[in-house]
Structures are given as C-alpha cells and as structure tokens.
C-alpha cells in the first residue's frame, strides 16, 4: 500500500531515470569494461588487462598532448580569468546605457558557436591577407603563418580561447561584483586605499567564491579542449593535431584513436585517464579552498 502511494512519484521520475541510466550510467560501466579489452567493434572483444592504459601512457602522442595541454592550461586559465575580471571591473565602472552596451559587446563572442569562432579566426590568422597579418604589415612586420608555425600555434589558440571565454566569465563575475556592498569600498577609500588596493583588498576577497567556481570550471573545460584546436588545424580523424602535433590535445588524441585507428578499448582507457586527471585537479582545487577558508 505504501508502494501504491508512491507510484505517481516514480512514474513522473521514470523517463528521466531511464534515460539517465541508459545514456550516462551504462556508458560509464561499459566504457570501463571496454577499457580492459582489445576491441575494434568488428571482432570479439579480448581481455587484455591494463594493456590499453599502458599503451596510452607510453605513447608518444600522449606525452605530446599532455605537454601541450600543460602549457596551454598554465597560460589560458589565469590569463582568461584576469582578462574577464578586468572586463567585469571595466563594465562595472560604467552605468546605465553604456554599461549595458559594453557588456553586450564584450559578451558577443560567447554567442558564437565555438566551431564558428575557430573558423573565423582561421581566416583572421591567414598568412598575407588575414586581418592580423594585415595589421602587422601596417607596422612593417613580416607576415606570420600563425597556424602553421610551431612556435606560434599554441599562442594563436590561446588568443582565440581568451576571446571566446572572457565574456562568459565576465558575466558571472559581474553578477558577483553587484553583490559587494558599496560601504566596503567607502571604508577602504576613507582609509586611503587607491583603486588598485581596493581591487586587491576588497573586490578579490569578496569575489573569492565566484572566482573559485570560474577557475575550477575553467580548468575542467580547458582540460577537455577540442573544437577550437581541431578546427584551427583543419583536422580530420586520420590527420589531426596540426604541424608536428603542435596543437595536439588529449581529447583530440582520444577521438583519433577511436574513430581514426578504430581502437575503442584504447580510446575508452584514454577517457578514464583524463577523467582521473580532471578529478585530481578538482580535488586539489577544493582542498585549496578548504585550506584557504578560515574556520
């Protein structure tokens, strides 16, 4: 009789629960199973223990992708958030129409699908006639083949990345700025704090919880970067990563192993390795927060 009473509740939750089980829980479990098997979807899966994990960890592409990722993250996350914070402060210093105007303008790149941002920037970066090179030309500088020169490729990606993500983070930070009580600034000003000091000692500490979210989220999405480098390098499942793999990233490598080399077992193992890295990162971030927050 108790079950009968609860029946309508279960009926309402059922569609969600079923889809969740089928397209989230089952893939995780089956993926875990595949990751210990040699399997190409055509032949019978063969248990091979940890060989997939070993193959990924020892491969040269993995090392290259991880190195690229390390440099990329070390620059793009702090830079992206510094820019976003600066933009948020800038917008916040305007009022009325102009605040709205600049906020919308700065946010515009976020509206573009990422695949399109990458496509447009490929044209902007084009050698000789691309806009970036044209501007360089005005200053008498030689044309740079940004997306084919292994020295500039990673930075070209970071520029696009900051261009795309700054507006997104700005909006989140702006919401936080609005919640800082004005009298804290008053008090700081009376104590003779300069503008920069106000930012350092009032704004940033008050924004800490939101900055924490933005940084953590930034890390997690940067670790999974795919669309933009894939398109900037004109990749396909058979050839990806750009010249000398200068823009090879883990998710690209994983997708290539699955759909180019058709080694599904190895690709799922790759996914679990990446997830482990992401969880480790997140745990460190939460640990840092717990340690920084006074009890």
């Amino acid at each position: 009789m108790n079950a009968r009473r609860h029946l309508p509740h279960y009926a309402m939750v059922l569609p969600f629960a079923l889809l969740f089980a089928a397209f989230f829980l089952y893939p995780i479990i089956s993926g875990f199973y595949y990751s210990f098997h040699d399997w190409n979807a055509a032949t019978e899966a063969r248990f091979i223990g940890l060989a997939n994990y070993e193959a990924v960890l020892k491969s040269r592409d993995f090392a290259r992708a991880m190195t690229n990722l390390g440099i990329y993250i070390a620059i793009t996350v702090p830079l992206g958030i510094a820019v976003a914070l600066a933009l948020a402060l800038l917008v916040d210093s305007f009022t009325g129409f102009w605040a709205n105007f600049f906020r919308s303008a700065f946010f515009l790149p976020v509206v573009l699908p990422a695949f399109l941002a990458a496509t447009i920037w490929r044209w902007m970066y084009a050698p000789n006639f691309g806009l970036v090179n044209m501007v360089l030309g005005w200053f008498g500088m030689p044309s740079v083949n940004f997306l084919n020169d292994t020295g500039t490729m990673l930075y070209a990606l970071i520029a696009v990345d900051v261009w795309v993500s700054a507006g997104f983070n700005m909006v989140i930070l702006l919401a936080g700025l609005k919640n800082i009580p004005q009298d804290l600034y008053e008090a700081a000003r009376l104590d003779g704090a300069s503008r920069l000091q106000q930012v350092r000692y009032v704004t940033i500490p008050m924004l800490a919880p939101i900055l924490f979210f933005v940084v953590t989220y930034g890390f997690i999405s940067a670790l999974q970067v795919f669309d933009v480098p894939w398109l900037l390098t004109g990749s396909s499942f058979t050839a990806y990563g750009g010249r000398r793999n200068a823009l090879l990233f883990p998710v690209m490598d994983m997708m290539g192993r699955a759909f180019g080399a058709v080694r599904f077992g190895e690709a799922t193992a790759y996914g679990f390795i990446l997830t482990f890295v992401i969880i480790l990162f997140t745990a460190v971030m939460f640990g840092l927060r717990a340690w920084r927050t006074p009890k």
Partner: protein
Amino acid sequence: MSSVTVNQAIVAELYTWRFLKWVLAICVAVVAVFPIWWMFNVVFADPGTPVSINPRLYPTSLSSGLSKIQIILMETPYLRAYFVTIGYALLTILGMLLIGSMAAFEFALFDFPGKRLLFGLVMLSLMVPTVVTIIPTYLLVAELGWLNTMQGLVVPGLASAFGLFLLVQFMRTLPREMIEAARLDGASHFKIYWYIALPLSRNAMVTLAILTFMKTWGNFAWPLIVAPKPEIYTVGQVVGLFNAPFSHQTVDVVMTANLLAVLPPLLFFLIFQRKIVEGIAMSGSKG
C-alpha cells in the same frame, strides 16, 4: 594651498582615469565585435577586389550579399543542414524540458523512498566530464542502430543533469500551499504538475530552453561522430566543409556560409539577452 593642489591632482587623476577607461572599453569592444562585423562586410560587398587589397571595413553592397545567401541556400546542402540543426535543437529542448520538469517536480516538492539516492547520483554526474562517456555513448548509439539518425543525435542528451539542477532549484521556491490546495480539490498528481507547477516555472524553463538552444546549435563533437553521413550533417559540419583547405570556395562564399551559421544564435541573443546573461550568471553563483 597644498590642499588645493592635492584636490587638483585628484581631479586630474579622475579625468585621466575616466578617459583611459573609455579608450580601453572601446578598444576591447572593437576586438570583440570586429571579427563578426568583418564577416558581415565580406558577405555584403561587391565581389572582385581581393580581401587583401580591400580589408572590408564596412558593407558596400546589399544585393550581392543577398545573392550569395541565395546561392548558398539553393545550390548547396546548406538548407537541409539548417533544418537538421533546428530539428536537433528543438527536439532536444522539448524533450529535455518535459522529462526534466517532470523529474524536477518530484525532486523539488515531494518525498519518496530512493529520492535522495537518485538525486545525489544525478548531481554527482555533473562532476563527471564528457570525455569519459562520449565514446561508450557513441558505441551504444551504434548498437541501437541509431547512427546517422535524429534520435541518435537527440536522445542521449535528454537526461540533462544541469537542466534538472536548474529546474529543481527553481521549483523549490514554488508555493506549497497552492499544490496542497489543488490536491484537496481532487486534482490528480499529473494535473497538479501540468496546470500548476509548469506554468509557475515558466521563467526557469525559458532560461533553460535558451541555454540549450545555444548549446545544441554550437555542438560540434557529438554530431561529428554520431552523424557522419552528409544527409544528416548539422550546420557545424557543413561550415567545416566550406572551410576545408581544399574546398575551392572563395572567401566571400565561405563567409556567407559562416554568417548563416551565426544568424540564429545571434538573433536569439539580441532578443533574449537578459535571460541568457542571467542564466549564465545564475549557473555560476550556484556553483
């Protein structure tokens, strides 16, 4: 005396700061908007002069832009990709809203055995990155025979943990007295959901719908692997074809293809700007 000079210094600093602020804001706005503006100008310009000689700082010809758009829509598979993507986005939105709001209604307002476990599991899944599920999900879709189909694109994305979270947060604020009153009046469980909870949650549903539209329209990786057949290409893939290194298309044609892909999300943004910004800010502050 000295206090006067100090005041002057402060006033001077104030003015330079104000001036610099405007310069900076305008420069950033130009950097943010210009690539899109440039794309627009390349489309709406007379063909002929190469872009390298004429950088296209403003549009010059409406008719030539329109004719390019017409060519793309009539003579390439673009229009079909448009319909596919709109179908993909709409079905995802409808399905997600229906399934998500039904579950959120229960999670937010009622108690039943197993609720905490299930909800906890769904919230935990927010922490699990897509990289780990994308390939096994693809394999499952392949096993179901759903590759290159609309259901293959749509169905795996319907049980959205983020959507559920957003709706539950909102539905928790619904007035319980109203639901109680409706029940005493003899309304069935489903009727309470359909006639009371849903209309009251309109705001959250609209926000979720808009964010989902932006996300599905821009989804590149999933259609790339699950729908690789030209018949079911999404806009993202067709744009990729135009921009491929050996597509033999001129810049203005390629840019027209790009512009058409931006148009829907751009229009959405112009109409629902406030909702989009609020939705993003909300998802941030809840984190």
